[in-house]
């Protein structure tokens, strides 16, 4: 429990760091570390498939895409963030955490739930046989992403 909680704290810490850091490259790396921690958290919840996916796809693929974009958009002038927003953020965050903790404490045992039945089957079965329409959806969204990128990077011979 202690390990899990510290991992969670690390996750939030690195995510906030990714938002606050001014250097985009460092922010992308921070986000990757946060994804790594989230993957480990998933592993410890007995969700090894989700953990593997999170680490390889989010910490891997998405970080690469980010760094690619950062490299392609490097030559512009640096965007100066609003100083006020950066100052207000820690205050806002701490206040939110306090309210969050109080609300959670108040909600303890208040949300009813139906009893859960023991789980059976393997992950493969659950994904392929139990949630097959999800797979159709995944194929559709991957097609959508691929065609979007193709459409947005097409060669323009005429520009209006």
């Amino acid at each position, binding site marked *: 429990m202690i390990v899990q*909680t510290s991992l*969670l*704290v690390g*996750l*939030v810490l690195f*995510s906030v760091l*990714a*938002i606050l850091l001014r250097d*985009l490259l460092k*922010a*992308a790396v921070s*986000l990757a570390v946060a*994804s790594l921690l989230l993957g480990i958290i*998933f592993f410890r*919840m*007995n*969700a090894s*498939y*989700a953990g593997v*996916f*999170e680490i390889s*796809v*989010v910490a891997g693929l*998405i970080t690469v*895409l*980010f760094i690619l*974009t950062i490299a*392609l*958009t490097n*030559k*512009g*002038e640096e*965007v100066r*963030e*609003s100083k006020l927003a950066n100052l207000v*953020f820690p205050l806002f*965050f701490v206040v939110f*955490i306090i309210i969050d903790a109080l609300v*959670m404490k108040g*909600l*303890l*045992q208040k949300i009813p*739930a139906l009893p859960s039945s023991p*789980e059976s*089957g*393997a*992950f493969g079965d*659950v*994904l392929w046989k*139990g*949630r097959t329409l*999800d797979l159709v959806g*995944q194929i559709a*969204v*991957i097609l*959508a*992403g*691929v065609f*979007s*990128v193709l459409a947005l990077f097409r060669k323009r011979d005429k520009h209006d």
Partner: protein
Amino acid sequence: MTNTWYLYLFFSAALISAGLYALLAKRNLIKLFIAIEVIAKGVSLLLLATGFARNNVLVAQALVVTFIVIEVSLVATALAIIINIYRHTKSLDVRRLAKLKG
């Protein structure tokens, strides 16, 4: 709901709120997208934690895996749009995108 669920909900809410604040306050387009990524982490944490609390990790994993695939497509499309915006305005400042009044 078991008590550990509330622990995860606490952290998930922190992540989502941090991401939402950044979405409103930040000006760099790529930072805005990092904010969206943070929100996505919060949501996937919540989904899996819910499955964990209900002893139903397999279904929750399927949901999270699907959600991550959707996230990748979304990131690809968004970054393609960002790169195109950069080609137009030579800047990543969202204030340069204020032509339309909304």
